[in-house]
């Protein structure tokens, strides 16, 4: 009997790549896509890497495809924006070895800066999109994506969402197909996209998509279930399961291919049901096309464009059920926070003391925007901290940014921050950039990057030294400092912000969640010394609370002994001691 295993959606995607005979995988970590690469790396048959950003990852996969092997890139939805430049053009080039991009959307914004729908990008780029609904389909659809990629000479997007990527369900495992490499032949009309060649390829792309619109009607990944034809649903992805939960007797057309839409299949289904609903999370991508064909359907009139869907949404909107739900308890929110011992907290506490604003970036440190730190004023996208600070300086002058810094993590700096810093140098900018170097890509769950000295496999790599890199692009003021030395940090911030030059301050201390980190010390209140001033509580370390009498208490199990509270205490009421000793 074939082995059956319960798998995370992302684990199943990785398995699909393995079984499809993929030889090269490239990615940049980003929730909810990260675990794809973390699982691919377990298959020794696949070369897998973390690239510094999604554009690079996409191009690595394209190169592998052109050379004749099956290749995959994976990223979160906003990563697709970074990769969109190669994506739009590789749509013209097509694929030699199968080429698949796994794009992970985040309806409900569990860990993202926007709620964009990758299907919109795919429509614009003229790239086919397959959409699985559970782990088994995630694996199967990835394999099918490689088949049609090669058959139709096209990159294929497999679109997942947070709910699918981070849900587990059973998967039947199969053997890996050893695909023979496709021969490489020089073909500049196909592979060199300059105007004369691209004109021809654009015609090819249009024909390809037209063909897929027809052939897609027969793809086995679509599922038509005719039951009661009074109500029919057109849907795709995870939404299918909400319909099955609520309307098990309704007719359903579950699309496996959502771009281009299999038009004849949809028209036939629509003609057989009395009332047609289109049930799709986020943008009305299916709905607007179907309606443009003159088909009557109900979609975003009753279903939202925001957030995740649910069975209860259907119960309310379609069945008009009064659900008699217990109201939510009114309780204080529990947003994520920086960990005890996080070096970002230390740096932010100094910036806050000096009343400095920060142009922020994407990482755990984005939490520096909220109480009690309140340091970060802006967050746009990966790498934007440095360039937005530069924009402010050019708009309002050098004095305006004397109480501003840009803050960016080591991985985000390697991703796209370096480009923004080059721009500051080139355009005679001034300003202070703080690189919060915690030696890891922390927020997504601790992935290595070009500056950490380790590959995705954990092998030793030549670490790119951030300070040397900054000096190499002609920045004179490059300072490396311990992130927990708050006295020196304060002095350096004051000194560098006073200059009318570019300064890069690299605050260094590893993330406390890096595997294998040891914390021999803990902080302890010294009995009778606490004056209840609350200074130590200000940076919001979760290990610190107040006793009923107002004195400080430190949770030993949470404390990592960073000593920030000890440094902040003016009354020497906190000591750092060896863990386990009184």
């Amino acid at each position, binding site marked *: 009997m074939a082995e059956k295993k319960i798998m995370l959606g992302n684990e199943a995607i990785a398995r699909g790549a393995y079984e499809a005979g993929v030889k090269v995988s490239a990615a940049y970590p980003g929730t909810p896509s990260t675990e794809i690469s973390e699982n691919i790396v377990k298959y020794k048959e696949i070369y897998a890497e973390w690239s510094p950003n999604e554009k690079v990852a996409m191009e690595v996969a394209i190169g592998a495809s052109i050379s004749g092997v099956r290749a995959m890139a994976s990223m979160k939805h906003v990563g697709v924006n970074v990769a969109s430049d190669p994506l739009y053009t590789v749509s013209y080039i097509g694929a030699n070895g199968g080429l698949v991009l796994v794009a992970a959307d985040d309806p409900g914004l*569990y860990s993202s800066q926007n709620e964009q729908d990758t299907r919109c990008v795919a429509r614009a780029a003229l790239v086919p999109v397959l959409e699985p609904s559970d782990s088994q389909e995630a694996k199967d659809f990835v394999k099918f994506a490689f088949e049609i990629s090669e058959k139709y000479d096209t990159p294929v997007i497999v679109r997942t969402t947070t709910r699918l990527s981070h849900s*587990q369900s059973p998967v039947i495992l199969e053997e890996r197909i050893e695909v023979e490499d496709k021969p490489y032949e020089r073909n500049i009309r196909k592979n060199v996209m300059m105007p004369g060649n691209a004109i021809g390829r654009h015609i090819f792309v249009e024909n390809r998509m037209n063909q897929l619109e027809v052939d897609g009607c027969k793809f086995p990944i679509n599922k038509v279930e005719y039951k009661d034809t009074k109500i029919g649903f057109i849907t795709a992805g995870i939404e299918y399961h909400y319909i099955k939960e609520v309307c098990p007797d309704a007719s359903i057309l579950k699309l496996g291919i959502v771009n281009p839409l299999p038009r004849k299949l949809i028209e036939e289904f629509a003609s057989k049901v009395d009332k047609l609903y289109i049930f799709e999370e986020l943008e009305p991508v299916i709905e607007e096309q179907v309606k443009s064909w003159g088909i009557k359907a109900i979609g975003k009139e009753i279903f939202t464009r925001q957030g995740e869907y649910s069975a*209860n949404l259907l119960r309310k909107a379609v069945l008009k059920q009064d659900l008699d739900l217990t109201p939510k308890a009114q*309780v204080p929110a529990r947003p*994520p926070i920086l960990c005890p011992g996080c070096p970002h907290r230390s740096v932010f506490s100094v910036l806050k003391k000096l009343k400095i604003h920060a142009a922020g970036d994407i990482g755990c440190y984005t939490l520096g925007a909220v109480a009690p730190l309140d340091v970060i004023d802006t967050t746009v996208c990966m790498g934007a901290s440095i360039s937005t600070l530069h924009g402010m300086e050019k708009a309002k002058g050098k004095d305006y940014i004397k109480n501003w810094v840009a803050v960016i993590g080591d991985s985000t700096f390697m991703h796209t921050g370096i480009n923004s810093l080059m721009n500051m140098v080139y355009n005679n900018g001034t300003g202070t950039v703080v690189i919060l170097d915690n030696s890891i890509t922390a927020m997504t769950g601790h992935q290595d990057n070009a500056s950490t000295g380790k590959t995705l496999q954990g092998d030793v790599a030549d670490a790119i030294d951030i300070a040397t890199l900054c000096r190499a692009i002609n920045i004179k003021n490059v300072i490396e400092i311990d992130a927990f030395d708050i006295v020196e940090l304060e002095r350096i911030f004051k000194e560098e912000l006073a200059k009318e030059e570019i300064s890069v301050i690299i605050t260094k201390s590893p993330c406390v969640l890096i595997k294998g980190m040891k914390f021999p010390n803990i902080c302890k209140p010294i009995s009778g010394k606490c004056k209840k001033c609350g200074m130590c509580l200000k940076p919001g370390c979760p290990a610190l609370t107040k006793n009923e009498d107002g004195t400080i208490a430190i949770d030993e199990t949470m404390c990592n002994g960073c000593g920030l509270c000890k440094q902040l205490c003016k009354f020497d009421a906190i000591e750092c001691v060896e863990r386990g000793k009184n």
Partner: protein
Amino acid sequence: MKTKNIMIVGVGGQGTLLTSRILGGITTDAGYDVKLSEVHGMAQRGGSVVTFVRYGDFVSEPIVEEGQADVLIAFERLEALRYSHFLKKDGVIVVNDLCIEPITVVTGAFEYPKNIIEGLKEKYKVYAVDAMTEAKKLGNSKTFNIIVLGIAAQHMDFSQEAWLDVIGKTVPPKTVDINKKAFLLGYNRRSY
């Protein structure tokens, strides 16, 4: 069998993922159709986290919806209250009697609600345990979540052997014995 809906809630870092994987393992081993839904990424940094486990003959959606949960396993009091409206009218709550103040309370913006467990008892069947203290007595404070799971296991239809077997396969090898002990502590507890 009718689909059974379990929720595991807590504060990021308390081990909801490990617990859901144990549940995923035991339900799969028993031959059920299973779906689990987890939270990864930023919310795990000390935020409120929720994991759904659904098992039965055939499971469609991977999430438990409001008003549908049979058992709510909560690793912290406030989180039990936050998600209590997900329970069915006759639902069961197994709660670790522990307070972790959220940052919104630490900064003074809100107060941590008082008498949470008493309030929940008015509406639901509540089994509260100070699992942290029990776990410390056992010699490893991290096993508190397995003690809580042990109590919740009293409300599910799997044998003690099956639980111990899956725990052995799921937790880190060095901690198998202590986790089995922790599980039995909860599983055999009869007074609350």
